[in-house]
């Protein structure tokens, strides 16, 4: 009887450990993680991306709706094809990367969570901070949990991967980026396309 209870206790503890939320680190050794952005103004379309994406998220495969995370983008990593536009974009009249070196999204709550297999879709409400201005934002996300796939991506590491995809829009005027100015060339609406993968090592 005592042996059975011991085994039951071990199984229960193991079950709790296995079901515990995992922490995923989004610092990408392969340099694939990126946040693309597009501004489609009447006179000019600007396409670029940011590669300096990092952060962490806690994710429980048994309860994806409880996911919490904070993703940061290094402002200086934003790139557009034209060097003059790039300098202006990071300069003090636009994003002011020297004073505001990071763009942050920190999740607060998951709603409309739907899970099918390893994929979860949800609407995430969180705080988006750009150029020192923080706004509450709700964005759609798609999470894909890839169990034991870390070794396929990074050969000397074992663990799981969590892929986050999100496409949403913000208005630069909401973040005090030259509100109401140059809208014929620099659209007020900014389309953002986040594609990132995080790793949880075992």
């Amino acid at each position: 009887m005592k042996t059975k209870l011991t085994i039951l206790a071990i199984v229960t503890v193991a079950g709790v450990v296995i079901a515990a939320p995992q922490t995923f680190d989004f610092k990408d050794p392969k340099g694939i993680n990126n946040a693309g952005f597009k501004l489609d103004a009447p006179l000019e379309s600007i396409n670029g991306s940011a590669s300096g994406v990092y952060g962490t998220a806690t994710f429980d495969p048994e309860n994806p709706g409880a996911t919490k995370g904070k993703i940061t983008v290094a402002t200086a990593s934003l790139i557009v094809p034209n060097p003059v536009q790039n300098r202006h974009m990071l300069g003090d009249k636009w994003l002011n990367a020297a004073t505001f070196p990071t763009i942050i999204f920190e999740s607060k709550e998951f709603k409309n969570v739907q899970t099918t297999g390893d994929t979860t879709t949800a609407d995430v409400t969180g705080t988006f901070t750009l150029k020192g201005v923080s706004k509450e934002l709700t964005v759609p996300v798609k999470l894909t949990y890839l169990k034991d796939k870390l070794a396929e991506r990074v050969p000397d590491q074992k663990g799981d991967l969590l892929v986050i995809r999100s496409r949403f829009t913000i208005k630069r005027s909401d973040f005090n980026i030259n509100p109401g100015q140059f809208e014929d060339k620099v659209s007020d609406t900014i389309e953002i396309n986040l594609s990132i993968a995080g790793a949880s090592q075992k």
Partner: protein
Amino acid sequence: MKRALRIIAALLVVGAIVFWAAAGANRGWTKTRVPQKVVDEVTGLEGIQWQNRFVPGVDFLGAAFLGAVILAGVSIFVPAKSK
């Protein structure tokens, strides 16, 4: 000299148009880097890697045209035949 300046101006315009067209006839601003899509096989994520490449735009054409106009303008003030 007059004739040479006008020929250089014409060559500048033609050369700029040919170079611009050969480089993809980019109707935007000049680019010094272009995005390349990279797909991660494990995650299926589409990444962007930037390659340093010069792609002339309409500002390049404009500069070439301006240069040609200046050369043609200077040629007006050059005597037809120098002695």
